[in-house]
């Protein structure tokens, strides 16, 4: 179980800021436990927002993104986890002549710290701080949207998160600020709202907000998710132009996630989610799903002397 990753593309890999045991939920791995597994995701869009104008493009048809990824989460201790995610992304347009692109996208790493946990009334309140860093793990280009597999910036994300659970019911809210590095194009001039004679593009930072709530108990998590991504700056796609990495890409998405531990062998679990875009700007109106299989390996030596109590 674990999963993560966030990387919001023009259309592409809608991350799933959604599955469980990720950088954006309140689940922690216990000390010395390592959860790892493959995931597959698919999303597509036919309509997109050119600035605020919703349109289709008959020369692209439906643009789809497949994501094959590996994700993992290791418990340094019960309050500190490290996570990683590495996706391989494949894009394709159903119409027109443009070649799709594919390749290893960004390697993302997170440190997740459960800073505070206390009984409040009849439930438990936990506070988390999460720091993440992602960077391109291959020589892909962000300068060919919507077929690019990523935006190419290095991203430093800082997230604060609060979780409250009462019985099997819970709610989690988080806010994230993403500092994005400049990117370098394969050309030395480009036009945004003015001409630039440089191969470097200033990528605006971004902020996101995520809220999730539902059922969480031994063996089963089922939750509804709302996620909003807001680019802090950038510009709109002009009429009938192509998208550009430093566009002001905003989107609101809703989805549903589950995680199910196999009763016959609890270290093995299945995760899945569906997600759709309900509002956006300079992004595709994508709908998609993810599915994954995860396995928990416990590296703890079999001595029961563990004084860390680990109730989660």
């Amino acid at each position, binding site marked *: 179980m674990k999963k993560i990753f966030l990387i919001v593309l023009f259309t592409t890999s809608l991350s799933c800021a959604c599955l469980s045991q990720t950088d954006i939920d309140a689940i922690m791995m216990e000390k010395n436990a390592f959860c790892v597994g493959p995931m597959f995701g698919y999303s597509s869009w036919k309509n997109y927002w050119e600035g605020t104008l919703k349109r289709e493009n008959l020369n692209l048809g439906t643009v789809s993104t497949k994501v094959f990824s590996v994700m993992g989460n290791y418990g340094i201790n019960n309050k500190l986890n490290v996570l990683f995610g590495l996706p391989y992304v494949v894009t394709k347009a159903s119409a027109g002549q443009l070649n799709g692109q594919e390749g290893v996208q960004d390697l993302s790493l997170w440190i997740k710290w459960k800073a505070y946990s206390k009984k409040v009334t009849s439930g438990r309140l936990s506070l988390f701080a999460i720091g993440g860093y992602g960077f391109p793990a291959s020589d892909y280009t962000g300068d060919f949207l919507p077929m690019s597999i990523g935006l190419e910036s290095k991203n430093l994300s800082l997230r604060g998160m609060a979780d409250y659970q009462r019985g099997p019911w819970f709610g989690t809210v988080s806010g994230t600020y993403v500092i994005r590095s400049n990117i370098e194009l394969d050309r030395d*001039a480009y036009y945004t709202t003015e001409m630039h004679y440089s191969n470097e593009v200033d*990528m605006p930072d971004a902020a996101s907000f995520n809220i999730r709530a539902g059922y969480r108990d031994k063996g089963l998590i089922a939750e509804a998710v709302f996620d909003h991504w807001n680019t802090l700056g950038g510009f709109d796609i*002009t009429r009938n132009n192509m998208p550009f990495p430093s566009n002001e890409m905003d989107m609101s998405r809703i989805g549903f996630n589950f995680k199910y531990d196999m009763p016959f062998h609890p270290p093995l679990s299945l995760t899945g989610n569906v997600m759709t875009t309900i509002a956006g700007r300079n992004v595709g109106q994508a709908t998609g799903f993810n599915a994954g299989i995860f396995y928990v390996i416990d590296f703890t030596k079999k001595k029961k002397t563990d004084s860390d109590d680990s109730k989660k």
Partner: protein
Amino acid sequence: MIQKNKQMKKLFIPIIFFAVLINSCSKDIVENNLEFPALQPASTDINAGIWKPILLTGPTEFPVAVPIAVTTPDYIAQINEIKTWQADLSKDEKAIVKYWSAGAVLRWNEIMRELVAKHNLPPYQNPDGTYPAPNANNPLAYPQFPFANPPYASRAYAYLAAAQYDALVAAWHYKKLYNRAAPYVTDPTVNALIPKSDLPSYPSEDAVVAGVASEMMKLLFPGDQDFIQQKIEEHKKARLISGANVRSDLDAGEALGKAVAQKFVTRARGDRAGTAGGSLAIQSQMEQDCIARGETPWISQEVPKRPGMLMLFGRVRTWLFDSLTMVTTIRPPAPPSTSSQKFKEELDEVHSYSTSITPETRAIAHYWADGISTQTPPGHWNQIAAEDFVAQNFSEVRWARNMALLNMAMMDAAIVCWDAKYFYFNPRPSQMDNRVKTVTGLPNFPSYPSGHSTFSGAAATILAHIIPSKATKYTDMATEASLSRMYASIHYRSDCEKGLESGNKIGEHAKTRARTDGAE
């Protein structure tokens, strides 16, 4: 918005050191063109008044009045105007002095490239599947005028540069004739915020260039007059407050530039570009002619089908040779028949590029793509030339002459190439083999010959003549630009090779002019 972002960032100061580590601190971008030094010509080219103009009958066709003497109260008042400005210059004013000091021809070439990039967007279709055409008389209505595609752009660059050249030849004639020195010479207490020069300052070469731009841009970019006029005012102000020109230098120069430009505007109105859009009936006839020759005709692969771009641009009036020369000696020979074995081999080659894209071939394809929302291939070659010219310390008149040679060659390249494209009406690889997918946008016009190759051959040939020490570099760049279209899977090898060849021939015509215009 930017300020707001900055405030937000401050909230994260404890972690910023971390960000610095990975983000390499500053997000400030170094814009290459803002690093150019102030122009300090190696030679004033004081005798450029005898260089051969392009359209003018001679340098005195548009007379420039005798300047007032430097001892008159009027002139002294103009000197005092400069001194008043210089007594209290703001940061912004110093910045515009620095910006414009890099060179007038250079900056207006850049402004033109910016406008081309802004307007290089194909119109969106109507609900009934037809396409609207931009209207020069209503430039702000959608689709805005112009659609600055490569042929349009080549023409815009050429007219601007050619008119600036003729106007500067005339200006140089009068500079030498009247020999009125710059303000910082006539009154040593005027500061020179730009490099000093022995070149007489009346009429102002900067104002000549701005005056030409003012008139040519009304024709070429009629919807951007607010932006253009603001640049013109800024340019003139920069020259005044820098101590380079008094107001009468500027007024005389601007008037001369505008007058000369009118001659080029008249040529442009009659050069047949206005009807180059053609019609579906004309396109259909071209298609039928192609079928009658036993060949597979090009068809638009856009949805809905878009009429071929500027199908009659091949009939536009050329600069460097006549239409008979074009058809008999420059138009490339027929491409391989679409039913020939050679055609099949070339198609297979394109397909193999389509399926073996590497980061290197993709980067080359993207570097030279110069597609929508860019300055176009002719603009790219202007950028290449401008960056090299900066290091050559040309005088303004030589800058204009070299830019005119380059851009007349590239406009002629557009004409030659478009003539051949619609004459042969050859299909794109992706039309003949639907497995072929492209690495960049598929241009909406026939394949043979490659426009990029034709532009690049012409540009590299004349640039190699202008800066012989970089000849190999230009040839290599042209070859790479040409090959990039095969890497992008939008052209066959014959398109690229024959395009380069005809481009080279066009460049030779530009060299012929260069050898005889009096500047060498």
